C-alpha cells in the first residue's frame, strides 16, 4: 500500500529524514518508535502533505502512484488520515458541521452522493458511542476547550468516521491517562481490517501494549535502524534506545 | 514682576522671558540647538485643549491659571539630602532639588567608563556624547498613528517645548558596552518649600550594547504647593542591553506633575518598568516606546491611584516597527472621591513588524460616586502574523467578597479597605526590589486611609 524509498527531507535547510525506507502492506499495523527529535513527526507530516518540508530525494508510492505529487486534501480524499499530536482548535466551527463537511468532501471525491443531515447525525452518534466521545462534544466548536483526552478521542472519532485506507497516528498517546489510552486503543483495534493499514508513531511502548503492532521499527536520526516484531517493543522497554543507537554507531 | 499676582499669565511671561534671553544663535552645542528649535516651536504651539484627541478626557486649563513663579529656582543648600532616600536601598544616589541635579556618591567608585553627571555638567564635559543622545528618544516620540494624524485638531507638544526651551538640568547617565551596574541608581526629584514654582528637568539615560542597570526614580515634595513639575526622561537602550526601571510619583495633593518618558530600544534589548502614579492633584505620564531593532522586549506594569480630587492620566504609546518584538503593558487603577482616572494605551504594529507580541490590560476599581474613569485602549495593526490583545475592565468591589469578610467578623469599611488594597497589591507584588515593594504597600495603605478620612471626616473620631 505504501512504499517509502530512501526519503530525505529537510526543514529550514536542516536535514531531518536521512534516507528513510519503509514498506507497509494492507492489513498491517506498523509501529514507529524512536527518541525525541528522531524525525517521527516529520515523517507523519510529510505523508500528510504539510507545508514547510523540503523533500530532497527519495520516493513515496501510495496505492501505486506518487503520493508527493498530491495536495493535502487530495491525499485525504485518497484515504490518508493523520491523527495529530496536537489537534488544532477551530473556534466557532461546530464539530458536527466540520465532521459532516469532511465526510462529504471524501464522499464527493469518491464520486458518491453527499449524505443528508439526519442520516449523518445517526451515523455520527453511532461512531461517537463507539469511541466513547460524549455527545455534547459534537455540539461544541472543534477541539475548542476540549481536554487533552477529549481532543485525542475526537481524532479517533474522525478516523472511525472517515474510514481511511492508511491511518497515521502521531503520538496519539501523549498526554493521555490510562483510561483515555485504553479508549483510544480500543478505537484503533476496532478499525483494524485486512484492507486498512496503520502507522502508529510513538515514543513509549504503553500504547503498543494495547494495540499490538505487526511490525515495529526504530527510527533514530532520520533513519530506520531496526525492524522487528512485537518483541522489539519489550526489548526497548527494558533497555531504552541507547543500545540500538550505540550498536548503529559501532 | 512676579507671576504670583498675575494668574493665567505665567506662560506668556515665560515666552517673553525667552525672547529676551541669551540663547546664543551661533552655538554649535547640541543642547543649545535643541533649545533654539524648542524656543521657536513654543511660540506657535497651541495650548492643549479638550478637542485634541489626546486631551479629550484631561482638563488642563487650570494649569495655565496657576500663580506660578517662573524665575530660576533657588538651588537648595547642599546638605540633608540623604534623608530623602528613605527606602534604605544600597544605591548610587542622585538628588534633583528644585530642578538642580546633584550626584551624591563618589564618581571614582564607579566602574571604569561609566558616566554619572548632571545635564549641565555633561553639556560641558561630555558634549560629544550628549549631542549624540540628547533629544534622540524625544524627537522620535509618539505614535502619530493614522487615527490621530487624521484629526482636525492636532496634538500639542507644548510641554516638551516648554521643557526644552530652557535646557533644564537633570541627570545624565552613560553606561558603556558590556558593563552591568550592580547597585541600583536611585534618583529623588525633590521640590522644597511651599512656593508655587515651575520646576523642569531633562534626564538622559544611555545603556550601550550589553550594558545593564536598575534605575529607581521617585518624585516627592517638601510641602504642599501648587508647583508644576515638568520632566522629560529619555532612555536609549542598546543592543542586548537591559534596563530595569521604577518610577514613583508621590508629590503632594496640590501639585501638578507631568512627565514625558521616551524610550528607544535596540535589537534584543530588554526593559522592565514598574510605574506608580500616586500623587499630585493633576498628573500626566506620557510614555513612548520605539523599537529600533528586532526581538526587543518591553514589560511595563503599574498602578494608578486617584484618591481625593486627583486627576491621574497615563498615556502609553508603544510602536512596533520591527519584527519579533514583545511588549506587555498592564495597569491597575483605583479611584475614589471626586477623582478621575484617564488611561490611554495605544499599540501600533506596522506592516514590517511580523511576529509581534503585544498585550495591554487596564483594570480599574471605582469606589465612590462622583468619581470618573475614562479608558481608551487602542490597537492599530498593519501586520497579520501578530498576537495582540487588549482588555479593560471597570467595576466595584465584589459584594460576595465583602460579605465573606464580614461574615468572618471584619467591619464593612475594613473589608472594603482590605479588598481595595488587595486589588492594587497584586500589581505591587510584581515589584522585584523588596524594599520598594514594602514601601509601596505602606504608601498604598496610608494614602487610602487618608482619602477615607477626607471623605468621611466624622468616622473614627
Amino acid at each position, binding site marked *: 500500500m505504501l512504499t517509502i524509498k530512501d526519503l530525505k527531507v529537510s526543514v529550514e535547510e536542516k536535514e531531518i529524514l536521512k534516507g528513510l525506507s519503509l514498506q507497509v502492506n494492507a492489513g498491517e499495523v506498523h509501529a514507529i518508535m524512536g527518541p525525541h527529535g528522531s524525525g517521527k513527526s516529520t515523517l507523519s507530516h510529510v505523508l500528510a502533505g504539510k507545508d514547510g518540508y523540503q523533500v530532497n530525494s527519495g520516493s513515496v508510492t501510495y496505492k501505486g502512484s506518487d503520493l508527493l505529487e498530491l495536495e493535502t486534501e487530495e491525499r485525504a480524499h485518497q484515504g490518508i488520515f493523520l491523527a495529530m499530536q496536537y489537534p488544532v482548535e*477551530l473556534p*466557532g466551527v461546530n464539530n458536527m458541521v466540520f465532521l459532516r463537511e469532511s465526510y462529504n*468532501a471524501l464522499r464527493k471525491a469518491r464520486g458518491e452522493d453527499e449524505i443528508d443531515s439526519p442520516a449523518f447525525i445517526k451515523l455520527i452518534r453511532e461512531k461517537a458511542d463507539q469511541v466513547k466521545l460524549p455527545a455534547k462534544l459534537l455540539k461544541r466548536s472543534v477541539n475548542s476547550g476540549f481536554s487533552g483526552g477529549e481532543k485525542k478521542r475526537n481524532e479517533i472519532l474522525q478516523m472511525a468516521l472517515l474510514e481511511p485506507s492508511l491511518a497515521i497516528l502521531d503520538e496519539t498517546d501523549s498526554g493521555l491517562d490510562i483510561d483515555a489510552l485504553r479508549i483510544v486503543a480500543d478505537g484503533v483495534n476496532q478499525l483494524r481490517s485486512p484492507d486498512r493499514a496503520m502507522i502508529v508513531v510513538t515514543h513509549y511502548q504503553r500504547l503498543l501494549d494495547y494495540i499490538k503492532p505487526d511490525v515495529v521499527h526504530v527510527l533514530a536520526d532520520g533513519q530506520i535502524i531496526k525492524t522487528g516484531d512485537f518483541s522489539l517493543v519489550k526489548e526497548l522497554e527494558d533497555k531504552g534506545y541507547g543500545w540500538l543507537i550505540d550498536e548503529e554507531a559501532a | 514682576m512676579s507671576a504670583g499676582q498675575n494668574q493665567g499669565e505665567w506662560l506668556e511671561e515665560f515666552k517673553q522671558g525667552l525672547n529676551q534671553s541669551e540663547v546664543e544663535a551661533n552655538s554649535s552645542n547640541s543642547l543649545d540647538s535643541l533649545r533654539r528649535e524648542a524656543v521657536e516651536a513654543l511660540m506657535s504651539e497651541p495650548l492643549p485643549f479638550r478637542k485634541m484627541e489626546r486631551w479629550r478626557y484631561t482638563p488642563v486649563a487650570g494649569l495655565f491659571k496657576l500663580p506660578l513663579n517662573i524665575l530660576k529656582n533657588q538651588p537648595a543648600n547642599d546638605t540633608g539630602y540623604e534623608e530623602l532616600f528613605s527606602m534604605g536601598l544600597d544605591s548610587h544616589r542622585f538628588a534633583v532639588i528644585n530642578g538642580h541635579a546633584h550626584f551624591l556618591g563618589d564618581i571614582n567608585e564607579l566602574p571604569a567608563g561609566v558616566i554619572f553627571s548632571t545635564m549641565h555638567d555633561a553639556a560641558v564635559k561630555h558634549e560629544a556624547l550628549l549631542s549624540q543622545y540628547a533629544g534622540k528618544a524625544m524627537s522620535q516620540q509618539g505614535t502619530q498613528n493614522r487615527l490621530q494624524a487624521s484629526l482636525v485638531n492636532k496634538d500639542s507638544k507644548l510641554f516638551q517645548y516648554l521643557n526644552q526651551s530652557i535646557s533644564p538640568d537633570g541627570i545624565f547617565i552613560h553606561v558603556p558596552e558590556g558593563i552591568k551596574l550592580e547597585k541600583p541608581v536611585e534618583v529623588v526629584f525633590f521640590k522644597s518649600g511651599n512656593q508655587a514654582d515651575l520646576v523642569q528637568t531633562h534626564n538622559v539615560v544611555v545603556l550601550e550594547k550589553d550594558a545593564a542597570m536598575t534605575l529607581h526614580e521617585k518624585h516627592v515634595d517638601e510641602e504642599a504647593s501648587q508647583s508644576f513639575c515638568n520632566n522629560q526622561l529619555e532612555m536609549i537602550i542598546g543592543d542586548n542591553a537591559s534596563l530595569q526601571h521604577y518610577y514613583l510619583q508621590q508629590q503632594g495633593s496640590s501639585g501638578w506633575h507631568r512627565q514625558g518618558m521616551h524610550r528607544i530600544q535596540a535589537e534584543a534589548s530588554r526593559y522592565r518598568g514598574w510605574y506608580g502614579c500616586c500623587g499630585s492633584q493633576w498628573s500626566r505620564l506620557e510614555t513612548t516606546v520605539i523599537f529600533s531593532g528586532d526581538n526587543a522586549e518591553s514589560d511595563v506594569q503599574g498602578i494608578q491611584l486617584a484618591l481625593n480630587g486627583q486627576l491621574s492620566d497615563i498615556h502609553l504609546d508603544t510602536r512596533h516597527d520591527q519584527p519579533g518584538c514583545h511588549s506587555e503593558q498592564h495597569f491597575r487603577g483605583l479611584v475614589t472621591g471626586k477623582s478621575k482616572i484617564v488611561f490611554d494605551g495605544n499599540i501600533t504594529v506596522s506592516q514590517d513588524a511580523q511576529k509581534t507580541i503585544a498585550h495591554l490590560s487596564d483594570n480599574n476599581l471605582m469606589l465612590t460616586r462622583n468619581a470618573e474613569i475614562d479608558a481608551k485602549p487602542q490597537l492599530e495593526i498593519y501586520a*497579520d502574523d501578530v498576537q495582540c490583545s487588549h*482588555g479593560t475592565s471597570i467595576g466595584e468591589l465584589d459584594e460576595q467578597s465583602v460579605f465573606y469578610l464580614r461574615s468572618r467578623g471584619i467591619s464593612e469599611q475594613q473589608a472594603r479597605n482590605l479588598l481595595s488594597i488587595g486589588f492594587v497589591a497584586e500589581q505591587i507584588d510584581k515589584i522585584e526590589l523588596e524594599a520598594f515593594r514594602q514601601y509601596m504597600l505602606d504608601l498604598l495603605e496610608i494614602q487610602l486611609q487618608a482619602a477615607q478620612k477626607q471623605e468621611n471626616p466624622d468616622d473614627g473620631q
Partner: protein
Amino acid sequence: MQSGNSPIDELLDAGYEYGFVTDIASDTFPPGLDETTVRAISAKKNEPDWLLEWRLKAFRHWLTMEEPEWAHINKPKIDFQAISYYSAPNSMKDAPESLDDIDPEIRKTYDKLGIPIEEQMALAGIAVDAVFDSVSVATTFREKLAESGVIFSSISEAVQDHPELVKENLGSVVSYRDNFFACLNAAVFSDGTFVYIPKGVKCPMELSTYFRINERNTGQFERTLIVAEDESHVSYLEGCTAPMRDENQLHAAVVELVAKTDAKIKYSTVQNWYPGDDKGKGGIYNFVTKRGECRGDRSHISWTQVETGSAITWKYPSCILRGDDSVGEFYSVAVARGMQQADTGTKMIHMGKNTKSTIVSKGISAAQGQNAYRGLVRITQAAENARNHTQCDSLLIGDKCGAHTFPYIENRNPTAKLEHEATTSKIGEDQLFYCKQRGLSEEDAVSMIVNGFCKEVFNELPMEFAVEAQKLLSVTLEGAVG
C-alpha cells in the same frame, strides 16, 4: 471646471463603463444644493409646513458644519454641489436594458449566491414586467399587517397619512443637528420607511420578507423611522446579500428607532453595496447614522449588521438606554478587502438604572482592506448597576491589510461593571492544514474558519438570512488567502 474631477463624476464615468447609462430624466433635479432645492423637494412631496421648516432649519445648520475627518478612512473631498438631490422614485428610465449590461463581477456574485435570473434582473434595476408574484404576496402581507394595526409604509406616505405620528417622532432620536451627514439627510432626505407597531402588538412577520421583494431604489438620502409602542415587538431587516445596482456614490441614511416600555426592536442589516474595483475606483460611500432610543423601562433594541460592501463604510448603530432595565445590543461583522475601508462600531449610552449592553464586533481584513472598530460606552452618573460587555475580534488575512480597535470607555458610576476585550488573529496555517488533512479544500476551510469566527453574530440574524450571510461571506473572501 472644478467639479470636473469630483468623485461623483468619476463614478459617472465608472457607470458608463459598466453600462449604467444615466440619462437625466425630466423629473430629476439638476445638481446643486441651496434653499431652493430643499423647498423644491418638499414641494414635490407635498409636505406640510412643519416638515419644510424642519428641513430648512437642518439645511441652515448644515451650512455651518464641516465634513468630519476623524474616522480612520481616506477619501477625497465630496463636492456636495455636484449631486442631484431628487429623482423620482422607481424611475426606470436610466436602467440597464439587460443583464449583459451589468458589471460581470457582480453577475458572477449573483451566480455564486444562487440568485434566480428574475431576481437578478430586479436587483440590477432592469424593468421586468412581472417581478415574481410580488403583487399578490405583498397584498397578503399588507392585509395581515393591517389586521394587527401595524403601519408599514414609505415615509412620504406616512407624512400624508399619519402626520401626527411622524411629527412626534421624526428627529426625536437623531436630531437634525446631530452630525454633518445626518444634518444633510434631514434637509434633503428622499424617502424611506415608516413603521409603527401599536401597543401590545407583536408584529406578525419579519418585516424583511415583504421589504426585500418590494424594495426600490429609495435614493441616497434614505430615512427610516420605527416606533414601537409599549409591549410591542418588531423585527426589521434591511438590505440584501446580493450587490445592488446604485448610481449614487454617496449614501447618507438616517435610521431612528423608538422603543417604549417593554417594547423590543430587532434591526438587522446586510449591506453589500458596490465596493469599487480592485484599484479602489468607484464604490459607494456609506455614511449612515443609526440610533435607537430605549425610551421606556425594560425596552430592548438590538442591532445586527453584516457589512461586506461599499468602498467606505462609516456607521455606528447606537443605543440610548434611557429607560430603567433597558437593553442595548450590537452584533457586527464587517469585512474590508480590496481597497475597502470600514470604520464602524457603536455607542452605548447608559442613562437608566440596571441598563445592560452587549457589543460583539468581528472585523475581517483582507488584501489591502482597513477595518476599524470605533465604539463608545458611556455610563452616566445616574445609571446604577449598568453592565457592559464588549468583545472586539479582528481576523487578518494577508499582510497588507489593517485591523484597528478604538474603544472609548467612560464611567461615572461606581456600581457599573464594564469589560472590554479585543483580540487579533490570523487564519493559522495549522488550522488550514488540519482542515485540508480532513479532505476540505482551502477555500472551504477558510470559509469554515471565517464563519466560525463570525458565529456569535450570525446567530443573531433571522434564520434564513444567517445562511445567506454565511454564503455571502464565503463568496466575498474567495481567493483572499493564498
